[in-house]
C-alpha cells in the first residue's frame, strides 16, 4: 500500500469520523485522549523519578483513570447510536440526568483525589 493510499484511507477515516460522530461526542473523545496522554506522562515520570510521594502518584493516576471511566460512561449515554428500542435502562435515561451524574461523580472523584494527594 502506497503512502497516497494510506493518506487517503486516513483522510476518509477522519472525514467519516467527523461526519458521523456528533460534535459533543468528538469533544468528549478529545478529553479522553488528553486523559490517556496525561496518564502516560505520569507513568513515565514515575518510572524516571521514582514514586516517592506514592500517594501523590496514585491520586494523580487514579484521577486520570477514574475520570476516563466516568466520561466513557457519559459518552455511552449521550451517544445516539445507543438509543435502540428495548435496550437497557441506562440507554433510556435523559441526557440531563447523564450529565448530572457525570458531574457528581467527578465531584466525588476530585474531592477524594485532592484529599489523597497530600
Amino acid at each position, binding site marked *: 500500500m502506497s503512502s497516497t493510499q494510506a493518506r487517503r484511507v486516513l483522510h*476518509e477515516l477522519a472525514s*467519516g*469520523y467527523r*461526519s*458521523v460522530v*456528533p*460534535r*459533543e*461526542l468528538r*469533544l*468528549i473523545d478529545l*478529553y479522553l485522549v*488528553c*486523559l490517556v496522554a*496525561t496518564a502516560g*506522562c*505520569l507513568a513515565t*515520570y514515575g518510572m524516571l*523519578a*521514582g514514586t*516517592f*510521594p506514592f500517594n*501523590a*502518584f496514585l*491520586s*494523580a493516576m487514579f*484521577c*486520570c483513570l477514574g*475520570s476516563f471511566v466516568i*466520561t466513557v460512561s457519559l459518552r455511552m449515554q*449521550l*451517544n*445516539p*447510536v445507543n*438509543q435502540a*428500542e428495548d435496550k437497557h*435502562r441506562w440507554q*433510556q435515561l*435523559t*441526557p*440531563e440526568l447523564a*450529565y*448530572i451524574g*457525570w*458531574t*457528581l461523580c*467527578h*465531584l466525588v472523584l*476530585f*474531592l477524594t*483525589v*485532592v*484529599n489523597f*494527594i*497530600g
Partner: protein
Amino acid sequence: MDHLSRSPHRSHRHISPPPPLSARTVWCRALCTALFLFALLGAVLSSAPVAAAAEGRSGASRCDGSPIRDGWSFSRHISTRGTPPVGRRVLVIVDDAQPYSRLFQLLQEAAYQLEVRSPSDRSVRLRNAVGTEYLYDALLLMEPGMHTFGDSLRVQDVVDFVDANRSVVLAAAAPLGPLMEGVAEATGLEVDEAGTVLLDYVHAVRPLHSGRTNAWGETFAVRPEACGIAGRMTASRILPRGMPERPVVFSRAIGAAAKAGKELVRPVLCAPATAHSYEPHEVITSDEDAAPFVAGREALLVSALHARFGARVTFVASVDALRDEYLSSGEYGNADFFLPLLTWTLGERGLLRIAAAEHYRVLPDGGRQHADRYRVGDTVRLEMRIEEWDGAKDAQHWQPWNEAPDLQLEWVMLDPYVRHDMRRVDDRGTYVAEFATPMKHGLFKFRVEHFRDGYTPLLYARVVPMQPFWHNEYQRFLVKAYPYYAAVFAVMAAFWLLAYALLWGKSFMHLRPPASERRPSLTLHVKRE
C-alpha cells in the same frame, strides 16, 4: 467507509437547530453551577488546615497524640546496681600472717583497713548479725588448703559476696583446698588436681623462702609480659605503670586455665612457654591420660575477673609470690607487680559509673526537647556523664572520666540499626552521640555496652518507643510531586472546560429526541408487559 456511511438515522446532521431553552435546561445549568462553586469552596477549605499543619510541623508535637513531659528526671534512668563499691575494709584470711607482713604493711600504708584472721577463727563473719549488710568490702583469701573459714563459710558465701559487688583475691597454691577450688571454678577457672604443681625447669630459680620441701622447678621467675589475646592489658588500669622490668617469682603455683567461653576472665600474667602442670619428680609420658592438665602460656599465673556490676575477683596462682622475701627483694619485681594488682582489685582504679544520662530530641533550631517517645526520623541525642573513682589514699572521690577513646552507642531493635561513637564534649566526662533515627518505627533501645580491660563494664539501656508519622505530619508540597499536582489540576481544568462546553454548547440536549418523541419510559414499558 461503507459501514460509516450507514450511520444511524439520528446523526447530528439530521438534528434541527436547538429550540429555545426550556425551564428544565435552566434548572439543570443552575444546579451544575452551584455544584462547581461548592466543589471550589471545598477544595479551598480542605487545603487551609493542611497548610496550617504543615507550617506547625516543627513545634507541633501536640499532633502526635502524646503529651510532652517537661518534668523528666535523671534518676529514673540511672541504675543503682551499676554503682561500684568504694569501701576499704578488707578481711584477710591467713593462718600465719608473719611471712606476708610486708604485703599487709604496704596495703595499710595505702589506707586499707586490714583485718587479719585465721581460717579456724569461728568468730569471723562476713555479714552483720542480722545478715543484712556486709562487714567488709574485700576479701583476701591466702590459705589455699582450707575447706572452710570463719563461721563455716563456704564457696556459696564467697560467691554471694562477689554478687554483692565486692572484691575477692584468691591467693592459691598447690595443692588447692575445696573452698578455693570451688570459688575459682565459680569464677570461670579450672585448676589441676591435687598432687600436681606448676613446674618450669628452664626458668627455675633457687627459692628465697624456706618451708616445705621444694622440688627443682617449683619456684621459677617469669619475665612479665602481656600474654596472648590480652596484649592490651598492659595499657590498662590494672597495671598503670606497665609490667615491671624485673622478673616475678612464683613458687608452688597451681596449674589453672580459663574455662572456654568465659570472656570476663582476663589473663593478666601467663606462665612461660616452658611451664607445665605435673607431679614433681615424675617423668611425663606420652600417654594421653597422663598428659599435663595445662602447659605453656595457657597456664594462668594471674587472672582477673570483671563482674558486670563492678566486683572483681583476682586469682594468683601462688600465695608464696606474696611473701616478704620476694616483695622486699631487689632482685625480683613482685612488689611492682602485685601491689598495683591488689589495689586495682580493691577498687582504687578503673571503677566507673554513669553519673548521669539523658536522651532528648534535637529540634531543627538546635533546641532540645525531652520526651519519652520519638518519631521516626527525629534527630536524637544521648548525653552521658561518666565518672571514675579515684581511690588513691588522699583522693577518695569520684572524678570525671575523660579518657574513653572508643565509647559507642547502639540504637537497637533486636539488631543495631545505628552504631555511633560518643564524643567527649567537655572536661566533666560528658560524652554525646547524636544521630538521625532511621525511618523505622517500633521499640528501640539506646544501648551502651563498654567492656574494657581494667574498667568496670558500662552498661546502659533505655527503651524508647519510636512512632510513625501522624497522618498530618508527613512532608507536603514536595517539588518532586509537582508533576502529580499539575496533572490533577490539569484534569480538573479540562473537566471544567468540557462540562462548560457541553452545558452551554449548541446541541448537547438535543442528541436525543424531545420527550414527545421518546419511547415510553422503563416503568411504562414494564407495565405494558
